[in-house]
């Protein structure tokens, strides 16, 4: 592929990330195992709409959801990997972004008890541009 051609795989990923990054100032992120269950949970939730999704050549899946009532965006990325015991497993990354702290909190609640599991870190900044 020529250097001037936008690779469709990269284009799809970058486009989705750009949408999320531009959506708000209040963010939440976590990593953990079992993202497939979370994806199915979000797909079936009444207040959540699947806006975009993409599966790349490594079969990694990115799903972009919108929590309608809070107008928050949730980006869930699933990556196949090998665990320490050599077994294949799937790791996930969840990123939630909202225009308000309340909106962020209500979107996080939608994600269920799974979000309280492992490696949670919360970044919330206001519009004045407070640092993380």
């Amino acid at each position, binding site marked *: *592929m020529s250097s*001037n051609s936008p690779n*469709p795989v990269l*284009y*799809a990923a970058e486009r989705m990330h750009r949408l999320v990054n531009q959506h708000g100032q209040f963010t939440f992120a976590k990593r953990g195992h079992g993202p497939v269950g979370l994806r199915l949970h979000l797909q079936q939730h009444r207040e959540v709409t699947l806006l*975009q*999704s993409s*599966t790349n050549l490594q079969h990694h899946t990115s799903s972009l959801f919108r929590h309608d009532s809070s107008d928050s965006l949730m980006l869930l990325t699933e990556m196949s990997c090998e665990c320490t015991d050599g077994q294949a497993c799937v790791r996930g990354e969840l990123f939630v972004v909202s225009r308000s702290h309340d909106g962020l909190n209500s979107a996080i609640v939608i994600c269920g008890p799974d979000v309280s599991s492992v490696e949670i870190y919360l970044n919330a900044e206001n519009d004045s541009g407070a640092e993380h």
Partner: protein
Amino acid sequence: MKQSRLSKNPRLVARERLIEKFNHFPEDPRGHRHTHFTRFADGEAVHLQLATTETASLLGWHQEGQNLIALYEYGGAYVLFDRLIVRDGFDTVISIASTSPVVLSRVMTFLHASQEHEPEYATLFEVDDE
């Protein structure tokens, strides 16, 4: 062909034009967009499936030797067939874009039907984007 200093190489332009068209697949007003990228074990069978199906429209194609890129519209989705010659044969990447996961699934089912055996992904190497 000697390349002009004022314009891009026509073969690159032709290729980029098709990729651009795929990347800017018309979304619905709500911004729904679903993409799937994959390699099939038998990429040529996929191409044959697309080329011989009456309901698939060929929107554009560019061939340079055995390198071939073709953009199809099938069932409301865009399918980009991209075959490149590599050291050990061909590397064929199929890209699909649609506004709904249901349509995406239908197209995948249609393409998988071209495979002689159970769907089996060929593992080659990463596409060099440099």
